């Protein structure tokens, strides 16, 4: 009886959730902006609140004001800043997301690239890779191209600002239900399936994993440590979180990192908003050189 009462009380207590004060929201918003370039409008207060509540629980803090004053005391580079960033990033990704991009790569980009460049080593950057689905999708697609001798070799560099999702990406373990998003011809080739208690899980095979290197990298940190290297740059559904100024800065950084005839693929709802050296090719696809 006593237990039930206390349980009810605690449930009630938790449902009366601590509201975030506007001043706290302002602080947290400017903090995430300067850490990651993510712009949050006033309407994202609820989002910030719900995403940071778990931090309050972990740290045993009363409210967001306490969290704010904690952050204010922390030196830059303190692990909590990373936790804070991890909490506020949106980690939406899918297998074969926006498939027209992969069709474009195989049927249009690769043949031209092969004709026009001397090397046959293709280097791809999955910028903002989240939990790794995009990078492994690229791995699957390019492996197919390699087997058809359309390319000689390839490597994928995948980066994200969120260390938590990178942890998962490195492990390469996913729910089996993800196979619904993946063309069936890749299933047995690219994945090992769990048995027994973990029969709901799949794992990316080591041969595919080897082609992907994951790095922790903040896109707004410029200059990026790559220069003229990547033939293909995937930076999809990232700019939707950035302001015009940050987009311009990141796009310029991607331009520097890209090879001469590189292509840049961005999200279908995004645009580079003019003012960049990238040349528009078609919706959501831009090119650096004169290949097209």
């Amino acid at each position, binding site marked *: 009886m006593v237990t039930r009462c206390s349980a009810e009380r605690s449930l009630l207590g938790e449902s009366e959730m601590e509201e975030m004060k506007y001043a706290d929201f302002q602080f947290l918003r400017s903090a995430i902006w300067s850490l990651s370039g993510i712009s949050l409008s006033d309407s994202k207060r609820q989002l910030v609140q719900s995403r940071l509540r778990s931090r309050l629980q972990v740290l045993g803090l009363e409210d967001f004001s306490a969290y704010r004053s904690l952050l204010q005391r922390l030196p830059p580079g303190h692990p909590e800043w990373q936790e804070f960033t991890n909490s506020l990033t949106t*980690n939406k990704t899918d297998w074969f997301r926006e498939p027209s991009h992969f069709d474009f790569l195989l049927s249009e980009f690769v043949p031209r690239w092969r004709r026009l460049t001397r090397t046959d080593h293709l280097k791809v950057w999955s910028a903002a890779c989240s939990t790794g689905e995009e990078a492994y999708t690229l791995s699957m697609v390019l492996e197919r191209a390699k087997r058809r001798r359309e390319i000689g070799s390839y490597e994928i560099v995948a980066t994200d600002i969120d260390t938590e999702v990178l942890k998962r990406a490195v492990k390469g373990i996913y729910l089996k239900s993800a196979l619904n998003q993946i063309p069936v011809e890749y299933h047995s080739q690219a994945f090992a399936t769990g048995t027994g208690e973990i029969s709901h899980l799949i794992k990316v095979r080591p041969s595919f994993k080897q082609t992907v290197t994951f*790095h922790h990298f903040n896109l707004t940190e410029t200059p990026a440590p790559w220069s003229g290297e990547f033939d293909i740059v995937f930076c999809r559904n990232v700019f939707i979180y950035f302001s015009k100024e940050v987009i311009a800065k990141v796009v310029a950084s991607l331009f520097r990192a890209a090879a001469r005839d590189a292509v840049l693929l961005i999200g279908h709802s995004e645009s580079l908003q003019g003012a960049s050296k990238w040349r528009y090719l078609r919706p959501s696809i831009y090119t650096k050189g004169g290949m097209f």
Partner: protein
Amino acid sequence: MKGIIQMKNRSLNTKVFFVLGILASAAVAISYVGLNKMSGINDSLNQIVGVVAKRVLLAKNMDADKNELKNQEKVLILEDTQEGMQKIAGKLDGIAKRVEQTIADYKQLANDEGKKNADELARVIAQWRSVDEELRRLSFAGKSKEATALARGRARELMETFDSVLSGIVERNEKALQDEAARTDVEYTRARNMVLAVSILSILAGLLSAFFIMRAVGKAIDQVISSLRDNANQVTSAAQQIAASSEQLSQAATEQASSLEETSSSVEEMNSMIKKNSDNAAKAAEISCSSQQSASKGKEVVGEMLKAIGEINESNNQISEIVKVIAEIENKTKVINDIVFKTQLLSFNASVEAARAGAHGKGFAVVAEEVGKLAQLSGNAAREISDMLATSVQKVNGLVTTANEKVKVGTEVAQQCGTVLEDIVEGVTTLNRMASEIANASQEQAKGIEEVTRAMTQLDQVTQENAATSEESASAAEELSAQAVSLKGVVQVLIQTIKGGDENQQQQNTAAVASDHGARVSGPAVAKTHAKVLHIKNANSRKNSAGSGAHSNQSKLPEPLKKAVGGDYSSGNGVDTTSEDDPRFKDV
């Protein structure tokens, strides 16, 4: 038995009180019997200690005092100083009084026979006192021989009588003591037997009722325990299921929230693009509108030009008229030529006539010559005019022909211009209409997407809230699950308390049950172990990739991820808690 069957419906308290009641009444019975018998024994003891033994004691005291009296008497006789005699006499008085008092005491305790004895003793002592008076007198008088004789005679006799009475008393009372002791023995044996009998009976009754009641209670408790255990197991597994599904729900909600946040951001982006489109379309409409006006003006100008060309045509016609006039002038010039010819003829005639007239006609001849010359000049002039006119007509006709041709071409061009401009106007009008339509559509779209954005924002907020709530309910479910496991532990302890048994065995059972259902409860520990594995594994793979040396500028790059920032994360679906080296991953 009937009572016990009826007891079945009573509360445990009543049952326990019933057993306790039986035991208590047995105790009361035992106590009653015991006390009763003990009071008898006590009476006997009182009789022995308080009366008989005291009598014996008093008798012994009297005996001792009697001996003392005898001794002091001897000492008195042997004493030769008066002082010593006085002192001893005093002692004798004291002892004699004590004996008298003892006799009086004894009389109080004594029975009828004893009272007689006491009186006897009192009488003997009184007689002895008178003898003693005599003896003292003799002693004080120094007649020790007489005194000795009296002491050995009369006094000894009295003392012997005293002794015999006293022995009688002692003998009788010792017998009485033995009688009392025998009676106490009997009383004790009886009491013991009764207490034993009552005790055995009540223990039997207590055991019997306790047996039946405990059997009834035990059955009920067994049922309670078994259903409690079943319920605890069910609650635990249900709680764990709730925890698992809450975790899934929470995960799904979090994923949904992420999806929605991304969609929401995309829609916002689209919103801004559509706004831009709308602005551009509006600008295009404006520009096309002004183009339309320009084209219309152009058309007007072409119209005016056509009019002007028409006028030029008109002028050409007029020039043709002038040609006609010039032809007429030429005709008229021919008349002048005729007149000149006739005038020349006339002047020739006049000069002929003047020559005929001679001198009188001389002046006339000059006139005629002058007229002839004039006619000649007029003729020349008329010829020249005629020539000029002919050339003019020719030229004008050429001009008119060319002008007509040019006008024709000009008109055609102007007409084409007009058509083109008309087309342009038409095109620009269409363009304008379309641009306006685009602008309107974009505006509507902008409004629409604003609605969508608003809806998305709301949806986003609700979803974020749901995600948070479901996360909290997941942790509550986790808590519930832990509580259920601890409840099971408590039940186990209860069972152990009630049923007894090996503690380790019980604990093992609990652990086995817990691990059946509670794989997730031990999650964090598992997660930590796996985190370690992950760390090591990634360190290895990094070494390998460095060994293969894929790229020259590797040192410049951020270090490939080997270990992310700490923090316990665990999701219910096992994605985070399962190691990549898990042997259960099989190639299919």
